[in-house]
């Protein structure tokens, strides 16, 4: 079962390695991890997707909380939240397949951000389901390269985790 954790941390060098280290030494699996600064310059927010049962996720939260650089942790509600991931996909596209691919891109409300004679780069923003569906459809043409940012998310409503 996947859980998405939103973690506010001190914006110091070395914090990422502390968190990554904690996951590896305690045997927790990270599905994805996205980091960036927040509206407060000395605080960063990490969105971590963890795969595990309730016991594992409880442990992950408690162990993360023990790190001095971790300020606050909250779980992104799987239903009442907005989660997004950005993916860039470089896919084979010659004259014969290009129009089909453009159609797929339109259906998924994705963007074509680069084109050359053999391939194009497609930018998809969405939740994991959309991104996976897009990837699967495009794989028939041959995906040359792919990069994902990892999931980020916020709970809906006025509540914040600060």
């Amino acid at each position, binding site marked *: 079962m996947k859980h998405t954790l939103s973690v506010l941390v001190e914006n110091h060098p070395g914090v990422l390695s502390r968190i990554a280290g*904690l996951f590896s*030494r305690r045997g927790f699996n990270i599905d994805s991890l996205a980091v960036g600064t927040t509206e407060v310059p000395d605080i960063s927010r990490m969105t971590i997707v963890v795969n595990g049962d309730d016991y594992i996720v409880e442990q992950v939260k408690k162990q993360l*909380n*023990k790190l001095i650089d971790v300020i606050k942790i909250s779980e992104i509600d799987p239903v009442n939240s907005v989660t997004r991931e950005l993916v860039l996909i470089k896919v084979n596209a010659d004259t014969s397949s290009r129009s089909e691919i453009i159609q797929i891109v339109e259906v998924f409300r994705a963007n074509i951000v680069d084109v050359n004679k053999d391939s194009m780069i497609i930018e998809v923003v969405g939740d994991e389901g959309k991104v996976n569906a897009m990837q699967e459809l495009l794989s028939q043409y041959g995906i040359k390269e792919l990069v994902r940012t990892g999931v980020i998310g916020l709970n809906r409503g006025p509540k914040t985790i600060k």
Partner: protein
Amino acid sequence: MNTTGAEALIRSLEKKGVEIIFGYPGGSVLQIYDLLRDSSIKHVLTRSEQAAAHAASGYSRVTGRVGVCLATSGPGATNLITGIATAYMDSIPLVAITGQVSTDMIGKDVFQEVDITGATAPFTKHNYLVKDVKELPRIVKEAFYIASTGRPGPVLIDIPKDVAAAVFEYTYPERVDIRGYKPNYEGHPLQIQKAVKAINRARQPVICAGGGVVSSGCHNELLKLAEKCKIPVAMTLMGLGSIPGEHELALGMFGMHGTYFANKAVSQADLIIAAGARFGDRAIGKRDKFAPNAKIVHIDIDPAEIGKNIDTYIPIVGDLKRVLAKILEGTEEVKEREWLNTIKKLKTEHPLKYEKSEKLKPQFVIEKLYQLTRGRAIVSTEVGQHQIWTAHFYKFSEPRRFITSGGLGTMGYGFPAAIGAQLGRPEERVITISGDGSFQMNLPELATALENNLPIKIIVLNNGTLGMVRQLQDFYCNGRHSCVDFKFVPDFSRIAESYGALGVRIQREDEVEDALKTVLNSDKPAVADVIIDSDEKVFPMVLNNSPLSEMIGGY
């Protein structure tokens, strides 16, 4: 006032009331050592950095204060690691200070450079690489605060050479405010109420006391609760001394090498009150068979320990001393408890025992030592059979008298820890009970003991083998002994003499009392090389994957 980073460090340490630092100098800490010469802080030069960390840890364990150790960059820092990890596993407050190469050289693999903050991240409570000298006073203050509050633990401060030399205007911060670190001391009142109810209802309760009793200093509250509600107390290795070992409610140690009656009591209990104990693997036996009929009240300052190893019925996160005081208020006094008759029967029918033979038995030596010191010594041990024999046969009357590496199981810990202990409590008699394997790991510290006139007594239970591993090989490798028997063992009494310490050799039971008296009465460091039966085993023993109630031997 303008000072260098090194001056700011020493001043901040003085301000924190640090009276002693255990360390070893080197190229990256020259400025710091230069200032230590004139500081009110005493510096104790060990013979290796590892011993400095262990000594700081021993000092901390007996005094309850933060231990401080200091080493240079690179190998100096890596040598501290075992000591830091030992302190981390046993939740001992330590501040370790390391030198580092200059900030502009970091990452360039220069002479004696190592990423010590990276290396120690998994087993420090927190660590700092000081990149800006202006942050140094705040970091020192935070380090002591983090090390000594909440669940205590080691904190490392890595100070590059140029930061130590940099000049800045020094001010010492008045307050500490770390937004990511707010330990919770007050247990939740509702949870405490639930615990009180559970205790009032229980017919067969057992308290499992761990190292948290020692670090929160709540042995009085614990004893009062045990006596008021007539609850027997089993202790973990770290919790020994939580209640006096000779008390009628004391069950001694439970766990893999627990006493028969402690393990049986825990297994038959209908309520376990775990007080500052983390249900470590060596304490609980087969996990899903631990205390099968018991509801579990788990009180711990560290929320991450709750539910980690054992499911808990009533979790309480808070300072044990405060929580126990509140529980004590709420509980009803118990006049009679049938359960105690069962316990008494277990104790009298299955006491700790060992078979006498021609050869000298280690348990006998420890019993004698206990009698001769009337239980009033501070005893440190190394790790192995002698450690468990000590835990069984030396009855500790109060906390902070038994100094041992419980979590990490660090051989070579006991003797340097005794050096720290003796310096922390100069008026006490400090004894190290050791094995011939462990003693050889930090034997050169005899020089430190002599140099500082520390009359530590080292009792080497010498069986010429790594007894605990040998015993494991007996049980798990069909008795095929591999690389455990030493083909050469020195005469430790003569080694002691060459250092200028007193050395005696004991080989027969009838020599024990007089020889131990000579050792104990000496005002010098002294080593008793005690030749014991190498086939003697540690019993009782719970085999891997067995529940605590199934023990072999020794009762």
